[in-house]
């Protein structure tokens, strides 16, 4: 039988260890979007408000193995327009669109012909963009495609919000002079121990509590 996690260890798991789970969640959104639209790639960008950059948070398809984490100015490209205008769009010939940032596309090592993009809106704000590159031929009308894309935008919004909250909480823990990060790290180590060493660690914590409350 597994012991129920202590509140601190649960916090540690939720905040410090959640990044991988959130990446999986975001990746699942673009994976499904890519599959439904039969596209070459699908990506989710998150707006970094401190640097005014769009950051690749999840990629399925072309660029999947190296694009996550790379960033470009939020004022550039079709994604920048979608973020600004708050409107989704479908562009059939990307190269002819003056909003298209070729340098950004080339840096991703994939230049699409067709692109669909929708803003990711959370709490009345566009916090990112979901893109689908080169969707396959579809029986759906363009309007239906837009509507379907917007549903993925809603999913991406929920996932990105989780990522933002988790990162903010982690940042608070780590930035507080490292005090709590040390504590969380000790608890994590303790959770990984078994037998006598774990019991010794718990006794040490008990002694600390007695010391601090006496």
């Amino acid at each position, binding site marked *: 039988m597994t012991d129920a996690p202590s509140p601190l260890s649960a916090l540690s798991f939720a905040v410090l260890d959640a990044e991988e789970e959130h990446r999986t969640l975001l990746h699942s959104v673009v994976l499904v979007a890519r599959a439904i639209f039969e596209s070459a790639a699908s990506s989710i960008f998150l707006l970094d408000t401190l640097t005014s950059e769009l950051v690749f948070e999840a990629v399925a398809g072309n660029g999947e193995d190296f694009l996550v984490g790379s960033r470009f100015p939020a*004022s550039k490209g079709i994604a920048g*327009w979608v*973020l*600004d*205008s*708050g*409107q*989704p*769009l*479908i562009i*059939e*010939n990307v190269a*002819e*669109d*003056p*909003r298209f940032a070729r340098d950004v596309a080339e840096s991703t090592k994939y230049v699409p012909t067709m692109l669909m993009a*929708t*803003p990711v*809106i959370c709490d*009345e*704000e*566009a916090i990112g963009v979901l893109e689908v590159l080169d969707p396959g031929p579809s029986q759906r*009308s*363009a*309007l*239906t*495609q*837009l509507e379907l894309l*917007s549903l993925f*935008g*809603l999913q991406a919004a929920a996932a990105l919000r989780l990522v933002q909250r988790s990162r903010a909480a982690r940042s608070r823990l780590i930035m507080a002079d490292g005090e709590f990060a040390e504590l969380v790290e000790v608890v994590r180590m303790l959770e990984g121990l078994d037998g006598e060493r774990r019991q010794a660690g718990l006794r040490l914590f008990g002694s600390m509590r007695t010391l601090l409350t006496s």
Partner: protein
Amino acid sequence: MTSDFDRASQFARPPLTWNSVGRDYTAMTLATRWPAAVSPDAAWGSATGAGVRVCIVDSGVEDGHPRVGPVQASYAVEQDDDGNCAVVKVPAEDMSGHGTACASIVRSLAPDCEIHSVRVLGHGFSGSGEALLAGLKWAIEQRFDVVNLSLSTTRHKFVDNLRALTDDAYFGKTVLVASAHNLPIESFPWRFSSVISVGSHDTGDPGQFFYNPSPPVEFFAHGTDVEVGWLAGGIRRCTGNSFATPHIAGYCALILSKHPDLTAFQVKNLLYLTAANVRGAQ
């Protein structure tokens, strides 16, 4: 040369009224030249948009584009370092193609209307920001006959100001045609009853529009694979409510060209009576 500001001052606002005490009821008689059955021909037949001033509140409009023709005047919202917005005259240019696309659709329906532009998007502004509000306010103050707004804001903090502005337009005889958001989210001002709100249909027929019996989106117009003017004299096909909206704005320009005295309320009624699904029931 007469500026937009000068022209706007020609349209004096009527005094506010709360009741009809002391009014001459004979003087209150309004146009009654309504045909027994309203047909598109009665509503806008032979009209070209002549005499109607249409303002495109968007990303700017490319002057002289083959699908747009002359742009009467171009303005833009500019923000100072403190975030204060001002509307200034600028060269007629488009930052993205979106505004030119809207203007080209209006022009395709109302070839002789005047097209004016207020840029609120495309210079680092967000469509959900103060620039949209400032540009729309300016356009309404200029008493344009028709304002096309293929944008909206998701921010509730603007709702009260926007509602007051759109009411002002409605009572000031400016027909504000506003695009519904393409996402299933709440945004403004298309949700207000004082505007004519537009979503897309996908019948592919640009000459067809429908009244929605389940508002708040009141009308559906051609919004799928719409051929529009784009930057540098270009043409492209676009999909979305942004491109359905100027179809209705174009019909409003035609109606007002043929019946210049109509109020925003009456224009909306004519649209309703001539909608494909309403006519079809007759």
